[in-house]
Structure formats: C-alpha cells, structure tokens
C-alpha cells in the first residue's frame, strides 16, 4: 500500500510536529525522573524510550493502513474493549485502591486507554451509517448514548472518575459535532444536571468525601490541595524563561506527586518557563487544529467523524490536564498527550495520530 503516490500525500507536517513533541516529552521525562543521588536517568525514562519507538512504528502502520477497515470492524473492536474492561474489574491489578490495569507478567496495560479509541470507532460508524441531515433527535441518539455509557460506567467502577468523565465528554462532543437537535441537546444537559443529586444518594460516605475533595481540593490541604499548591509553585516559579533543564526544584525534589504522569506539564513549565510552555501549547494546538481541518476535508463521513473525534480526544486531554495542574479545574488524573509517562496512553495517542495522517492522505485520492 505504500506507493509513491501515498508517500507524496503523506502529511509530513503532522508527522514532524509529532516527532518534535515526542522528543520534548522524552527530554522532559528525563528531567522529571532524573535521580539526583545516582546522577542518572531512571528506568521509567528508558521504558518510555521503548514505548516511543513502538509508538512511532504504530503511527506509521496506522498511517498506511486503510482506515476503512476500522469501519468494518468497529463494533468488533468495541466489544473487545468492553471485554477487556470487564476483565480489569474481575482480575485487574489493584494499585492505590483502583483497578485499572491488566498485568501480563511485569508488563501491564490500561484497557481504559484503548477503550477510548474503540468507542470513537463505534460511534463514528453509527453516525456515518445513520446520517440525519436535520440533526439527531432524542430517539436517534439513544443508541450512541448506550454505546458510550457502557464503557464509561465500567471505568467508573474501577474507579477512575476522571477517565470515565473524559469518555463522556468525548462522546458528547461527537454528538454535537455530528449534529444534535437543539431540544435534544438541552434535554441531555438538563437530564445530566438533574440526575446528579440522585446518583449522589447512592454513594457511600467515603466516595462522597472523595468527590468533594476532587471538586474542591482546597478542602483537603494535606492531600490533593497540597499537590495543587506544589504544582502551582512549580509552574509559577518558572517565570518567563524557566529555571533550565534539570534545574527545576519542585520537580527535582519530588515535591510534585505524579511528577512523571499527571503533573508532567508542571515540571516542563518550571524548567522552560512561560516561553517554553506557550511554545509547547502552540505545537499541540497546531496538531489539534490540523486534525479538525482534516476532518472537514475528509472525503467520507466516517473519516470526518473519526478525525474530529481524534481531535477532540487530543483537545480535551490537553485542555483538562493543563487546566488541572494550573488550578483552573479539579485534579482529575488525566494525562497529557506526548508528555506524560505511560505506554498504553502513548500507543493510543500515536495510533490516533497515525489514523489522522491516514485520513489526510486519502483526501486527495479521487
């Protein structure tokens, strides 16, 4: 399938931007996990190098692999992802009170990451095969809601409130993008607001407490509130030009919890300052905008919806992560694309970029 024509249409812009971000991510991860006493990189860093190499390979495979195959198999993939989520709940590894991983020896995967992509395919297939030009009403949207709710609820049980909420936000974004009638949109928003107190009553006390802290970390000055304060100190103290590579005190002294995963952006902003952080955000914004342009120009609806969904996926991850570590929204444990450590997430991100490139290539073939 890789012929000259394909290569000529290959989206080098997207590809190189991705490589640059991956490189920035690795450099930053090196710093975030740098071991001061031994003066060397941690095993986390070396593992992420393998994941990055595997990720680039994955990107290339998906870039040259006709995305229409996913259209045919999207429901199968969806069922598979649900099965994996069930497997997590039954036999998953418990880390910090939550079951989120399946282990194969020393190697663990996080099925909720793959579930995000599989849900995208299933929803996009549904919308592209059931087009309604005037917009979807309440009855036509019931099936997509059901498709999205199943994995969201399973992930909620792990429990992983953040990922579950993110899944719903992604699905909802696609509903709106595919075209919701105004009354259906309003109905969903109102139903969501009204059901909250009902759901609240079903929660146990410690779960309620967790959610209260989650919504207002300042109430928990020793736990999440402390993390947030340290994150703000890290970012703020970077000032205009940052403290320089390996010079970030907050990150280096491990004040930051999850410094290599959820709070990785704080490490970056501390060492590279406002300028570095803005350049990083602009690069991400360019990828996301490019994604939405690809969506608009795709030659078929499935391609459009997939490209838009992937762009939403990148947008919400980036926006929620940065907003969270800067204290704009509650701390919800959403990783940052290209920057956070984590194999499952990196592979999912690279798969989605690969598919974006794929859709972008197909555009010119008539």
């Amino acid at each position, binding site marked *: *399938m890789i012929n000259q024509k394909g290569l000529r249409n290959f989206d080098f812009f997207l590809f190189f931007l991705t490589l640059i971000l991956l490189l920035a991510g690795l450099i930053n991860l090196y710093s975030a996990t740098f071991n001061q006493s031994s003066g060397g990189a941690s095993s986390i860093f070396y593992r992420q190098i393998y994941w990055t190499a595997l990720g680039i390979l994955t990107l290339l495979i998906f870039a040259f692999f*006709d995305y*229409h195959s996913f259209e045919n198999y999207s429901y199968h993939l969806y069922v598979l992802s649900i099965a994996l989520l069930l497997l997590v709940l039954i036999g998953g590894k418990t880390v910090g009170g939550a079951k989120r991983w399946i282990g194969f020896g020393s190697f663990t995967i996080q099925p909720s990451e793959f579930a995000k992509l599989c849900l995208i395919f299933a929803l996009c297939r549904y919308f592209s*095969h059931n*087009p309604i030009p005037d917009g979807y009403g309440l009855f036509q949207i019931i099936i997509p809601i059901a498709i999205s709710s199943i994995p969201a609820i399973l992930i909620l049980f792990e429990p992983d409130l953040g990922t579950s909420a993110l899944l719903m936000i992604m699905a909802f974004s696609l509903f709106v*993008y595919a075209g919701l009638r105004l009354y259906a949109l309003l109905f969903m928003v109102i139903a969501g607001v009204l059901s909250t107190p009902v759901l609240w009553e079903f929660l146990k*006390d*410690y779960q309620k*407490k*967790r959610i209260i802290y989650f919504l207002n970390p*300042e*109430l*928990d*000055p*020793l736990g999440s*509130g*402390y993390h947030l*304060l340290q994150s*703000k*100190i*890290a*970012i*703020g*103290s*970077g*000032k*205009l030009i940052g403290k320089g590579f390996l010079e970030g*005190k907050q990150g280096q*002294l*491990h*004040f930051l919890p999850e410094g290599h995963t959820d709070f990785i952006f704080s490490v970056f902003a*501390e060492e590279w*300052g*406002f300028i570095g952080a*803005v350049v990083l*955000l*602009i690069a991400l*914004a360019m990828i*996301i*905008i490019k994604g*939405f*342009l690809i*969506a*608009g*120009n*795709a*030659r*078929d609806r*499935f391609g*459009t919806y997939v490209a*838009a969904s992937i*762009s939403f996926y990148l*947008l919400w991850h980036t*926006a929620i992560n*940065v*907003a969270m570590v*800067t204290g*704009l929204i509650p701390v919800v444990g959403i990783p940052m694309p290209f920057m956070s450590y984590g194999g499952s997430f990196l592979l999912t991100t690279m798969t989605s970029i690969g598919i974006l490139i794929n859709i972008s290539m*197909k555009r010119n*073939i008539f």
Partner: protein
Amino acid sequence: MIPGSEIYSDYKEDPDEFLTRTRITVSLVLIIFLILIGRLFYLQILKGEYYRHLSENNRIRVYRIQAPRGLIKDREGRIIASNRPSFDLVFMPSEIRNPRAAAKILSPVINMKEEEIESIIEEAKEEASFRITRLKRDITMNEVSFVESNRLDLPGFFIVSQTVRNYPYLTVLSHLTGYISEITKKELQSEEYSGYKMGDFIGKYGIERIWDKTLRGIDGGRQVEVDAFGREISPIKEVEPIPGHDLKTTVDLDLQIVAEEAMQGKNGAVIAMDPRNGEILVMLSHPAFDPNEFIAGISREKWLNIIENPDKPLMNRCIQGIYPPGSTFKLVTAIAGLEEGVITPDTILYCPGYYPFGNRNFKCWKEKGHGSVNLHRAIVESCDVYFYQVGLRTGVDTLSHYARMLGLGVQTGIGLLNEKDGIIPSSSWKRLVLGEDWFEGETLSVAIGQGYTSITPIQLLTLVSAIANGGKVYMPIIVSEIVSREGFLLQKYLPTIVRELDINPSTLEIIRDAMYGVVNQPHGTGWSARLPDVEVGGKTGTAQVISYDSRRNGGTKLDDHAWFISFAPVKGPELAIVVLVEHGGHGATAAAPIARKILSAYFEKKKRAQNDKSKGS
C-alpha cells in the same frame, strides 16, 4: 486508488458540508488555548515572583489539624470517653541533615534508644522526605520544654499540639466503649478504610469501632510558610477540622460502677436491660482492660500480657462468652411444657432425689429429693427431676423451638462485633453437626440446661426481659442518640421489637409468679437477691463446667459457673439483670447478691430522683 473503496456509501456529496463545523471547532481550540496561556501568564508572569520565592526557600509546611473525636456519654450525659490535649514530637525528614546527632541529643530525654530514633528518621527520609512524621506522641511537658529550648541544635524537629482519647473510668467501661489506636498498614489497604490516612486513629473495638465514622469527624489542615529554623512566617491556607459527632449511650454509669465493684476479683459478666425498650444499662465483662493503654501505642510486653492471658480480658463475655445456661433454662422447659399442654400448673410429679432413665439414675441436685412438687415449687426450688420429666414429655425439638423463640442460640443483633450464637441442640442439629441420632437420655440434660446447650449472657437477658414485659423480644440498644457538636440531634435509635412471643400471657404470668417465689418464698434458691421494699423475681442457675462423672473421679477442682437472672419490680418490671460468675459455685451465693446490689442501687437512685422532684416542686 484503494481497491474496493467505492463500497463506502458515505461519500460526502458536498465537500463543504462540514465547513461551518470546522470553523466552530477551530475557534473552540483557539479559545481554549488562549485561556490556558492566559492562566500561565497569570501564574508565571504576574505571580511568578511570589511562586519563585516559595520554591526557592522550599519552606511550605503542611500540618494536619486533627478533628476532635466525638464524645461518648452515658445515659445521663456523663462523659465516658473524652479528649485531652497533648503534644507530639514530630520532624520534617528532609531537614534533618544529621540523624545520628539528633538521636544522641534526644535519646536520654525522650526515653528512646538512639538506634531506634535514627532508624525512624532514616526510614522517613527514604519513604516520604517531605511528610511531617511523628517521632513520639503524647510527650511530657519536660520533653516539650527541652525540645523548645534546644531548637537550634535540633533543626527539623518541632512540636505540634494534638488531642488524645481519654477514658476517665479506666477499666469500668472498657468492653463497651472499646478503644482507638493507630491504623495499621494492613487496614489502610482494606476497602473498609479507604480514604483513611497514615497516622489516623481508628476505633478498634466496641462502640469506638462500630461508630468510628460517626465519631471521627473530618481533619483540617494548614499550609504555612516557615523560615530556615522552622518558625512560621505566614499562613497560606487553613481549613478548619469538622468535629465528630457525640454519642449518647444507654449505659447508666452509676449502675456500671456498682457492678464493677461487685465483680471485683471475679471473672464473668453483668448485663442489665430496661425490659420496656431494650436499652442496655449495664454491660460489664471481667477481667477487663484499660483502654487508655492502647492509645499511646501499647508496648509489646503489655500486649502479649493481654493476648496470652488465659482469662482473655479482651473478650466481651456479655456477647462472646458461651456457657451452659444451667437451671435458668428450666424456665424454657416450663414454658414449653405449659404451652404444649403436657403439664398444667397443677401437675404434681414425685422427686425422690433421682430419676431412673435407661440404665442409669439422673440425679437431682438435692440428694434427699423434693418429694411431690407442682410446677411452682419445682421452679422455686429448682427441682431437676421435675424438669427431666417435663423435658421427656415435650421432646428435645420442642424445647429447642421454644428456646430459640425466646432468643437463645442466636445473636441478639446488638451491633457489636463478634457476637456469638451459642448452641441450642435439637435432633436435626445433632445429625447435621455430629452425624448421630438423638438419644432420649440427652433430652434430660437439655431440659435442665446442660449437655450441648450453650448460650451468651445477653441472650438470657433478652429472655428474662421478654418474660418480664409480657412477651416482647427487644433488640438490645447501647447507643441511643447521635448528637452533633453543636447539640443538634442527628439520629435517634428507637426501641425495636424483634418479635412478639407466640406464648399465652397466662403462661408468662405463671413463670413470673414462680420467679417471684424463687426470691421471696421459703426454700427459694434466690433468697439472696431479696430487697426490702421492691418485689424482685429471679432464677438461679449453676452451669456445670464438667460432668458429674468426671468430678466424682476427681477430674478437676474447678467450680461451676454461677448464674442469676432477675427482674424487678415483679409488677411493672423496669430492670432485667443477668449475672454470670465464672467458677463462682452456686447461683444463689455467688451471682444473686451481685444482682441485688445493682437492683438496690437502681431503686435507691429512683427514689432519690423522685424525692428531689417532689422537693423541687
């Protein structure tokens, strides 16, 4: 051209179909990223200097502000579990450059080994070097002033004020209130304690355990900026703790103390209930423990002493001790006989001092025999031979049915942990558990409360309460109210009737009358519980620790367990009491006087209250 790509039906006919959506989404991206960049501008440019300052000094310290634990009170509001102020010696691991030097200075003063101090510091440095860690809790004022005056030699060490649980009545209420101590690593990982933190104190026993979430409140915290010597410069954020709720129990402290004094030097259980609503007024188990000892972190030696004590001080005998009911069970046999019609109150049976059955003679406790007795006298004088015959007439399964109905052999549901069931044998029970058929000879033992039968004191208490109140089995209550620190009533535990007995009121009347006779009539076995101005009803019991046969062979010197169950006044009962004295000998001599002391204290107190009232008005 991709082969087969034409099969896809969703080609867009209008290439600009999504143009508007593209514009909207791109605008959305731009807006979101502008907001994020704006936020970064605020943090890094506008407040950059402030945050740089905080990060350079690295002097953010967070303290937990412990929420005051709710108080536990007796039925009149007297505090039986309180909090007292205390000081903890803590340290910031990252700030201790030289653990050995610090250990050397502190060791002689705080009475800990140098190596122990050093290893605690080293471990904390490794595990969480920026988490304030406790070195010693509840230090003395001398220790406090030493640390304060040697502050410059002890960088990284400081003192925080806390509160410590205090049980002012020491051993008197230990099984009831229980105790709290530090959460273990294992507990932290369990589902029950999710949301708890290292260093938290949790209820481990009794009311403290069951109502832990009600009592504990929510900790607050402070984030402060400190200088190089650990002195506070400015607070950053403070969240007030939310105190736990208070519990009002049903226990009467006065009666509990009377029971404690009466049980001095004895092992056993005393438990009393208001038969009108199931409220527990006394719950005492001996030997007891001092709950205060568990709080400071009990020493290994003391802990082993408690755990390996053959008398098991940690066992709450009221709900966990299982004993044969002895002659107190004759009330059940009598009720079964009357209800099934195999005897009437006037049925007269002859007791020559033994009852021949099979190829052996079953003895009456009175070797000379009681002669011809009716039911009333049989209960008053506790004639074994009479009840052997009633038991044979009803059969073991009927006895078992009535025993269970009256609350024996099943947990009462008082809500404390590890309540025991005991055993009420029946033919099907024996087949299931021992795989053997029932022998009728065994029925004789069951009829007088021996054999396989075993029950807990609290089960007997619900039985005697039900007889006293005319047939209602109440759920025992120990906590009556949850009250917020501000004094608002949050929850009230109302009396709950578990079941109404399917027994003729006249049958219970006959039993109550006989129980009156036990205490007040000539030859009654419970004479030692008699009170001058209140009519008391009761029944003695002597639970054989080993069988008659092995005693005859000189198998052991252990005395029998002594029971006394009672209620008063006979007309309109207000208090039901069960007393068990382990190896106390006879119920009449060992247990009944204890019940008498509590009854006497109860009615004297009531009289005093009435006098005060009439004086007042």
